[in-house]
Each structure stands twice: as C-alpha cells, then as structure tokens.
C-alpha cells in the first residue's frame, strides 16, 4: 500500500498545493502585521501590505491543519522511499535528513500554537494583544516557510514514490 506511486504522488501534490496556499496567507498576514498601510496604494508592494490581515486567521488555521494531516498521511511513504534514497551514503544527502527532522518537529510545535493563534486573531482585535498576535503570526510564517522549502528540496532530491534500484 505504501508504495503505490500514483496514490502518494497525488496526495503529495495536494499537500504541496495546500502548503502553497498556507504560505501565501501567512506571508501576507505577516507583512500586513509588521508593515501595515492605511492610505490608498498604487504599487505592488503597497497592495501586499494593504491586505486585511484579520481576514486570514480562520483560513490559516484550516489550511495548516489540512496540510499537516496530509503530511501525516504521506509521511510513511517518505520514510520508505525518499528517506531510503537520501540515507544512501553514496547519494551525499545524508545530512539533509536532519533538515526533515527539524521540519517535523517545528511543524508539530506550530500545530500546538494554533489554539492560541485562533484566539488572538478572533475578532474584535484588541490592541493590547497586537504584539503577541504579530509574534504568533511570525513564528507560524517561519515554520511554514521552512517546512515548505525543506519538503520541496528533499522531494526534488529523493522523490516520494521513487524506489531506489537494488
């Protein structure tokens, strides 16, 4: 079951797409929190900053959970395919496995932040909670970006569904 290439490539692709949406939402929110703009804007970066950060909170929670769940589902296939390839000393990517370890640990910590994150982004947005709200967003953004980059690079290097030849 774990070596059904079509199934795992499909699930991995969906996982990647959801992660992409999550990255977009978190990045927009982080920029809007740290560099908000209140006047009319006419350039690209101004529009990036001018998004309504509070509208992203619920979507981010849902996207993070869905992306995390799909990641949990495809993880066994990674363990049996890509991880096996990457752990081959001849492949010179053994150390890259450490980056995936870091990804899984920080993503778990990020999941634990979601209850507080949801609370702090729940309307009405109390000014006294601005800084904690911003820091939570920043942490989740860092976690999401790091997870995306690590997963992307390792998949490109080893590939889920790819069986090493014996």
């Amino acid at each position: 079951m774990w070596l059904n290439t079509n199934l795992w490539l499909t699930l991995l692709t969906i996982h990647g797409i959801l992660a992409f949406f999550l990255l977009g939402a978190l990045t927009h929110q982080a920029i809007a929190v740290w560099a908000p703009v209140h006047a009319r804007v006419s350039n690209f970066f101004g529009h990036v900053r001018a998004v309504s950060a509070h509208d992203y909170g619920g979507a981010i929670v849902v996207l993070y959970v869905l992306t995390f769940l799909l990641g949990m589902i495809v993880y066994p296939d990674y363990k049996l395919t890509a991880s096996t390839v990457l752990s081959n000393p001849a492949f010179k990517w053994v150390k890259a496995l450490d980056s995936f370890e870091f990804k899984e640990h920080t993503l778990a910590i990020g999941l634990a932040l979601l209850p507080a994150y949801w609370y702090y982004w729940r309307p009405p947005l109390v000014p006294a909670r601005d800084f904690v709200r911003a820091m939570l967003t920043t942490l989740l953004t860092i976690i999401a970006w790091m997870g995306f980059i690590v997963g992307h690079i390792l998949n490109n290097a080893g590939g889920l569904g790819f069986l090493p030849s014996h």
Partner: protein
Amino acid sequence: MSTLRHTSSVDPDALGKYPLFAITFGAVFSVLYLFVMNYSWQLFSYYPQVGRFTFWTSTLPATAGPQMKWYGYVATCAIVSFVAGLIVCLLPTNLLRRVWWPGFIWLVPGCAMLVALYLILVVGD
C-alpha cells in the same frame, strides 16, 4: 488593522479560561516535545513496512523496517499539554496574575525550536 505598537493598556481577557488553556497548551507542548524527542517518550511507534504499531518503548526486529516515532511524540505531547492546560484553568486567578505573561506563547516555542535545532545538529537526535 491598527498599527503594531506596544501598548500599556491591559488586555481585559488576559486571564480568561480559553486563553489560559491555549497559551499553556502551546508552551507546555513546545517544552515537553524536546524531552519526548530526546528521551524517546513516544506513546507509540509505527512500522510502515509491516503496517504494525508498538506501544511506548517496545520495538520490532530490524527486519520490520524503519520505525516512525513522530506520531507518538505528537500524541504524548498533545495529551500531557491538554491536561496541563486544564489544570492551569483551575488555578486561582490571583495566583496566576503574579506569574502569567501571554508572551509565553511565542517566546517559549521560539526558544524550543532553537533547542530542537541544537539537539538535531549537535547532539544528533
């Protein structure tokens, strides 16, 4: 969204039951995760090659293939953190007021991530 700034105004709901639970859950999870990861306190392990679970520190022979502990790490931390959050909610408010700081929810996980990186790169967990 208001301009980000430090404010001296008091958060009127800082000691509400839900934020107490949520902040405790996140902070305890982050710290506990480091110990669970370092000392292998996973609730269970999964062996995908044979499709079997083992509980706590039980292991299968090497022929069973790779052992996945991560699910067990998350389960252990989620359960303990949930209980810790509930306990904090039951503590008297005047006691909490002396030690409570909402910043725990970002400072503790942020530090935990750095410690996790150290454990992976230097200690080799």
